């Protein structure tokens, strides 16, 4: 797993690469939480273009960030999701609470 974080228009962009399972879940959570804390921004955008696999451990981290950010009045957005990963989001119910966009630019426009 490889994670790049950057700030754009007051949004923390998290670009994830690899497989989001229990092996990397703790590290994924720590990197995102650290970046949120040091940047102090309210919104987060996950770019999942290079995520080839996700299971409930990976979804759990995203849901955990959603709960935290939502409670602080921020928004969680997701851009570029692979078709085989979408069905996992669908079944988990996360698709109902987190908005999906085709690109980072499109997501940023909607904030």
């Amino acid at each position: 797993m490889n994670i790049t974080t950057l700030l754009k228009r007051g949004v923390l962009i998290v670009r994830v690469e690899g497989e989001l399972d229990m092996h990397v879940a703790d590290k994924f959570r720590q990197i995102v939480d650290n970046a949120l804390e040091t940047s102090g921004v309210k919104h987060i955008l996950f770019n999942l273009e290079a995520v080839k696999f996700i299971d409930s451990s990976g979804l759990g981290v995203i849901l955990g960030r959603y709960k935290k950010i939502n409670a602080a009045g921020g928004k969680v957005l997701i851009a570029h999701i692979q078709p085989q990963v979408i069905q996992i989001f669908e079944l988990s119910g996360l698709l109902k609470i987190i908005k999906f966009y085709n690109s980072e630019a499109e997501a940023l426009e909607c904030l």
Partner: protein
Amino acid sequence: MAIKNQIKIVLQSLSENVAIARVTAAAFAAQIDFTLNEIEEIRVAVSEAVSNVVIHGYAEQQGQIELIMNLYEDKLEYIIVDTGKGIADVLLARQPSYSSDPERMGLGFIFMESFMDELDVTSEVNKGTTVRMAKKIVSSAAH
């Protein structure tokens, strides 16, 4: 029904082996004419079952996980066996959002159930758990 092909592997209960388990499961499924989505479903279901063993069965302590893969005429079967702490109430553990940890979604069994056609969980406290799941093979003539 006769087993047409079988692979058994034993994995040490380590989080890095979860990926190896699901890759092996997908490779075994590749001998069938499954769609990419169906293969993905198998990858997720096996990943969930093996993750459960590492996280809960052995509670991140040492242990062995047996993964048995059987090919039958009409289905592909995956059996995940551990000798860890077991589940006190299997019916309760299979409920949505049942999780002992707030950061986890409690979706492991839901994914296994939704993505596979059969799921049986047998468990005994302090003896271990066996998860058996199977995906039906729809013959290509029926496509």
